[in-house]
């Protein structure tokens, strides 16, 4: 019988710890698939975050580093400068990347560090118990915004893709989502592109992936997908915010 679907080689067979309905698993798979498709697993080095994806090193079947909170872009810079011919990626959540690690992210992009950042945005702190993130929507209830996020008090969500798209050496910046199969396929395509541009040594590449947190949003997995589509998409529009010049021409 012909095998038409299998686990990517770039994923281990370790069962993931993520909550039911969380889309980290899908995003892991998309990253692994891109690594497989490009045939670079044995020369890939991944850098994981602190937060829900802290065990990324148990799931990605390649050499891995577990970095301090927010510092994955700095760690990846060190790795890539020593091994310029390896494929390096960071996998980070919104608290990790957009709060404590914002400086490291912006400056890695400004230097045009030739690695790929996978930025998982679910508008909340997951691991620490559902607190407000820099990406939390105005009005969204979290454990630290029990009355809903008040923009007067705590500001508005940071749009990381738009922000990074002002940086010249961020050669590929895209925001995708995984709330339905069509968008999962598009997300996979964007992630693969980011890795391809890295392989060509063009500069910093980042894919922001809108993701769900049914547990901390207090929704069922299905409701969470709906909430993402209905509430997050208007604030975080999808698209390729930056791409290399030849892509623009196509």
């Amino acid at each position: 019988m012909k095998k038409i679907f299998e686990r990517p080689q770039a994923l281990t067979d370790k069962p993931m710890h993520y909550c039911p309905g969380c889309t980290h698993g899908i995003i892991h798979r998309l990253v692994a698939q891109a690594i497989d498709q490009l045939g670079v697993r044995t020369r890939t080095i991944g850098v994981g975050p602190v937060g829900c994806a802290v065990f990324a090193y148990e799931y990605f079947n390649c050499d891995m580093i577990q970095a301090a909170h927010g510092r994955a872009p700095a760690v990846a810079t060190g790795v890539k400068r020593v091994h310029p011919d390896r494929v390096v990626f960071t996998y980070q959540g919104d608290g990790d990347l957009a709060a404590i690690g914002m400086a490291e992210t912006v400056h890695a992009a400004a230097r045009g560090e030739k690695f790929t950042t996978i930025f998982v945005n679910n508008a909340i702190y997951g691991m620490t118990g559902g607190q407000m993130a820099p990406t939390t929507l105005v009005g969204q209830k979290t454990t630290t915004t029990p009355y809903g996020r008040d923009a007067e008090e705590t500001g508005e969500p940071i749009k990381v893709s738009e922000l990074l798209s002002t940086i010249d050496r961020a050669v590929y910046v895209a925001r995708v989502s995984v709330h339905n199969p069509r968008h999962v396929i598009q997300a996979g395509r964007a992630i693969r592109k980011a890795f391809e541009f890295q392989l060509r040594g063009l500069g910093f590449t980042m894919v922001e992936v809108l993701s769900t947190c049914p547990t901390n949003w207090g929704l069922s997995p299905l409701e969470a997908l709906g909430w993402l589509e209905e509430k997050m998409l208007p604030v975080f529009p999808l698209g390729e915010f930056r791409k290399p010049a030849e892509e623009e021409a196509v």
Partner: protein
Amino acid sequence: MRGNEAFGEGALRAGCRYTFAYPITPQSEIVHFLARRLPEAGGVFLQVESEVAAVNMVFGAAAAGARVVTSSSSPGMSLMQEGLSYLAGARLPCVIVNVMRGGPGLGNIAPAQGDYLQAVKGGGHGDYRLIVLAPSSVPEIIELMELAFELADTYRSPVLVLGDGVLGQMMEPVTVPEGDSPSEGDSPLGAQRGQSPLVSPLVSPSKPWAVTGQGDRPERNIISSLHIVPEDNERFNRELEQVQMEIRRREQRVEEYRVDDAELVLVAFGTVARVAKAVVDRARAGGLRVGLIRPITLWPFPDETVSRAAARTESFLVVEMNLGQMVEDVRLAVNGQKPVHFYGRPGGTVPTVREVWNEVRRIREVSGGEEDLRTAAGPNG
């Protein structure tokens, strides 16, 4: 050569080809030196956005198997403590230079030794110690930088080299052998010298744990300091303890100067040890039997030497550029056998020969001697 340049020269001679740096006075010449020399040597110099980023880039480069260095001064070192704890937790070899200045807070840019406790007792969170080396002359800076990389690789530990503003800024003659130092050929990146930094460097076979891409290795490598199960974390801490006991046993380094028959033993490190040495010579010239113990490793602290001296001498005088930090370790080593006195000046001031001499006379209950002192003090007095 200037002290700060010697930190850079020592790193180069040890085969280090990577630095990630953020400038701060009084150590910026290290950064200037490496910015010029590393690219020439086929290495990578990167000025980055913060000390936090710098130390985490060191984490990445060390994880990737390279010999890597960064340097800072006191306020910058405080920012690096997060990274130091992670480096210790991930057991990554690297070298960090702290050219200390006055504190706390912004303090000033004058030489001080106020970071002793932070350096030797941890500084970052968790149960760890770093190897801490304290040079007291420019030639010794080069020597200890080379040693620092060897120790780092041997024990898979970050090594801190602790200087101060005087040491960083002073100029002394230095003789270095022509060509590569012996350690360079053995270093992971020795073979890469002169090649383009875009060529992936060789990684030493002695670092089979390094994260380089799995390649043909049967198992992938993971660098992590996370042990979520408490018993696992305890086991890791116990392993680290074993390594640290081995370091304590094997790596205590110290200079003893006229200690054998001394009735009073001065204990001082770094710049102040030079002042103390001048005091010893003056005291001897005046018939006072004074000696000096100069710890070269601040951790592991040379407690065996101090303890041995305690059996023979009558008292100790610890002299520091702070309000009393190393004195705690001296007291632990002396363990109540003899009185331990302290003289220190904090905040960026350097004790003078005259001041220390006065302390020595007070402790030894010697009166007069002003004439002596004038000769003794020299330019420092």
